[in-house]
């Protein structure tokens, strides 16, 4: 895309779809002369990833005027590779939401159809790509926040293995799950960006170590198969799956069979616990991570109210969080209370481990973190990304008020891979349709996943 016209295109897209929380207003300098792998490619960055050149708001009143003094590692890597960051994208506040509705900047509109929700929480990043204004975008995926909006806006969304891409500079929602993801219209761009970002970072304590990266690379070249075995977890074939998505999905399976792939039904019984486990662990981590926004250092602070009123600290400042964030802080703190910690948090952690063990049984590619011994011979698993097409924005605000749990159901297909840290790609099943299929594989085997998708995009 021509960089000279980009500012006009951003303005148009912004007025149509409300993609950005901030963006460039003057044409950027071309970077092609430097010859980086992403030179002159335009990037949009989710606004919970810190940048020196733009504010970082997390779509929250509490960080409304915050600008970070440093760039996230991913932002620096993109800069070094020649990419041009055109702006920061709208999101569900602090990444909490599945529909893109919980933002102080008003919801993003879906470029496919502005009546539809675009999905969240990386809603602006999905719209930036779907509208064509950015060549690719970065989102964060904690329970599906990259994959769901990608499916709803019919683009490709890739959540790499947990720890592959640095989280330094990514504002934490739930660190044990938070993963930077890549969104683009074609898989080659996704792969190219991934190549740039897939680096060990000593500043991130959860970054996959160089030793394990080397081991994984050796293992991947040794174990690569031209026709990987495919498994379909039966727990994913839900009765609620909408007929049109089901049809699309079966058609895709059929195309794989015709290409000569072997497809097996498999079972991950723990998938049934995934939502409960996720909504126990993630809000607990969130409540902890958001404790720092006490109004002393960030955000607005009522000058008339003392920091301590009735022995309670910072109440006034913390009322600046939006309702969904408040819900999760309360839920998270409840899960962490000394009376319930063992019954809730610890139990959820155990169930999470149990689920990882079940995934590990499937793949002959050994999990380098758990070292569990494989049992079956499945290389790739496949399931839909979303249960239903995106809801209509005007209906969402009604149902959500009645029952906030309804929104959580949207994550049912994406959460298991988040809990297990597995690399997963969602891509559209048919062009322009707001649903996707997810391809996942064993932890650390990201390259094989990209290769499979390159060969078998619908």
């Amino acid at each position, binding site marked *: 895309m021509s960089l000279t016209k980009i500012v006009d295109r951003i303005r148009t897209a912004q007025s149509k779809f409300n993609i950005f929380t901030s963006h460039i207003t003057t044409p950027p300098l071309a970077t092609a002369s430097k010859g980086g792998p992403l030179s002159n490619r335009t990037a949009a960055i989710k606004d919970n990833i810190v940048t020196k050149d733009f504010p970082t708001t997390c779509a929250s009143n509490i960080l409304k005027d915050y600008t970070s003094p440093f760039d996230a590692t991913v932002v620096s890597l993109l800069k070094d590779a020649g990419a041009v960051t055109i702006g920061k994208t709208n999101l569900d506040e602090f990444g909490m939401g599945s529909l893109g509705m919980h933002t102080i900047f008003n919801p993003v509109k879906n470029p496919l159809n502005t009546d539809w929700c675009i999905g969240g929480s990386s809603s602006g990043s999905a719209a930036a790509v779907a509208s064509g204004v950015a060549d690719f975008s970065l989102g964060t995926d904690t329970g599906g926040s990259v994959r769901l909006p990608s499916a709803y806006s019919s683009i490709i969304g890739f959540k790499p293995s947990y720890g592959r891409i640095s989280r*330094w500079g990514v504002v934490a929602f739930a660190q044990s799950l938070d993963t930077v993801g890549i969104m683009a219209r074609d898989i080659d761009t996704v792969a190219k960006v991934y190549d740039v970002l897939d680096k060990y970072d000593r500043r991130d*304590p959860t970054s996959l170590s160089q030793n394990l990266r080397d081991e994984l690379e050796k293992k991947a070249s040794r174990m690569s198969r031209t026709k990987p075995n495919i498994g379909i977890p039966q727990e994913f074939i839900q009765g609620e799956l909408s007929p049109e998505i089901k049809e699309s999905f079966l058609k895709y399976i059929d195309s794989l069979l015709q290409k000569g792939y072997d497809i097996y039904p498999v079972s991950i019984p723990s998938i049934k616990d995934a939502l409960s486990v996720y909504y126990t662990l993630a809000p607990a981590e969130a409540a*902890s991570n958001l404790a720092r926004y006490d109004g002393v250092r960030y955000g607005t602070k009522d000058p008339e109210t003392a*920091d*301590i009123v009735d022995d309670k600290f910072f109440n006034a400042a913390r009322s600046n969080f939006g309702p969904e964030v408040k819900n999760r802080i309360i839920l998270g703190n409840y899960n962490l209370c*000394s009376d319930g910690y063992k019954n809730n948090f610890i139990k959820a952690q155990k169930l999470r481990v149990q689920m990882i063990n079940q995934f590990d049984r499937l793949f002959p590619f050994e999990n380098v973190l758990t070292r569990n011994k494989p049992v079956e011979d499945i290389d790739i698993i496949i399931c839909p990304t979303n249960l239903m097409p995106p809801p209509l924005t005007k209906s969402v605000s009604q149902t959500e008020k009645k029952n906030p749990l309804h929104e959580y159901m949207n994550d049912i297909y994406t959460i298991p891979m988040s809990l297990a840290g597995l690399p997963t790609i969602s891509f559209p099943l048919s062009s322009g349709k707001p649903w996707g299929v997810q391809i996942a594989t064993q932890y650390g085997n990201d390259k094989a996943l990209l290769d499979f998708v390159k060969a078998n995009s619908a």
Partner: protein
Amino acid sequence: MLRGNYRILSRVARRHASSNTLSSKYELTCGLEIHTQLNTKNKLFSMSSNKSFESLAHPNINASYFDVALPGTQPVLNYEAVLFAAKLAVSLHGTVNINSQFDRKHYFYGDQPQGYQITQHYHPFSKGGYIMLSKEFDGIDQDLSKINITQLQIEQDTARSSYLHQSLIEGREEALIDFNRSNVPLIELVTEPDFHDVKQVKAFIKKYQNLVRQLHISTGDLETGSIRVDVNVSVNEHPRVELKNLPNTSSILNAIKYEYKRQVEVLEGGSLGGSKAVETRGWDGEKTTLLRSKESAVDYRYMADPELPPVTLSPDVLVNVKKSLTQSADDCIRELMAEPYNLTLKDAKILTIQNDFNDLYNNEEVRQYYLETFNIYMLLLKDDNKKKPKIIVSWILHELLGNLKKLEIPLKKLNENMLPPELFAELLVLIHKQIISNSSAKMLLFHILEEFKANDCVKVENLDFKALIKKYDLEVQTDVSKTELEQNCRDIITELNNPKMIDDIKSGKKKNSLKYLVGLGMRKYQGKIKVQELENMFKQILELE
């Protein structure tokens, strides 16, 4: 500098705690929680310099993005702190957990930028262990008293708040927060409730301070806040009361004494105030005051930290740590009191425990200097049955260190540039052999040290005591004529003009006055005569024996 508003507890009227004695009817039980700042190079989870004291005058210069908890920052564990913790745990005979973990302890406070402290709650760094106190070395009343350690945990320090009292507006005041201390590594040590009198507490703290100094893991000072002690106190069936904000040893001890008295009164239904409740109390210098009761206690909502990996230690590391540790202070004192050194408890303690704080030397350097001097002295005089190794320690502790202090010469410089132990041993041998008298040697030593200092402690080559003794004409004369000596001694007695003293010496009433006469004689001979010769002459004149 960042600002926040805090409501501060107002000072309440002061009252005196009177009696210090414990009654046998009421048993005191105490446990300690000690926070120790580690003097690692960097902070616990960031690369900022760990210099919270040196930088007091420059707030927030050692504060990284992580230390102030900026969004998007993450902790990376400093393994030096882990190594320090391992040294302490092994020294305390604790069982190190080779897979300890970090947890978050949540509470809001202005000086807690994350809204939680990273600590070790569920899987602490080490469990068990003890410190043995004894009457002999620690001055407690019991022969032996074992204080068991519950656990050690590694955790972050908070930032430092300072309150601006002058800006008090409508009951609110401003606080300044200095993040230099934020994220400094701490070890929290928790003891079992094994203390039953105040002397044990005092001895334990002293011994613990010495231990961390000996291990070089902390400066060990209470006054600077590098060690902070909280005390749990319970008298008989009175519920446990936690005492906080105790800035030095005397406030710790006085607070326990006061709290003992208060709880006794509560148990007796007396007037000193307070209910029979679990609570946290502070110390205002005179009495303990309520900080918070159990009802207002915070639920810290401990959570395993979701991004810090377990602290894994291979067993080899612990074996190496064990090997690297020097002997315990008690063993060291015992060794110095035994053959061949035979030091007094007092001298052995001076060489083992750091009490005298200055920039010139520490107890370890002095001990090393003593041991080396001792060995060479013994070697030089190995065939001499009359050697007196006791003069070594008194010369080092009294003459040498006294002069170093007076002239401000670091022992290390002295050792390296002028007077290594082998030369000092030589001087002591010259004294022993009466080639130079004690008093002349003292003068000579001070003189050469003074010159050394005047020359900025630059290296002195070929220091030769024999040559110096010649040069300054300090040799003890061996060919003093008997008649001249007798005349001189008689002159001294005449000049003294004190017949009463002479009579007292003669009658044996004041034998020590003879030493006075000898001293006068030494002065007359400018120290260049053997003491024995003078003494014999005076005895002869005064017809003693």
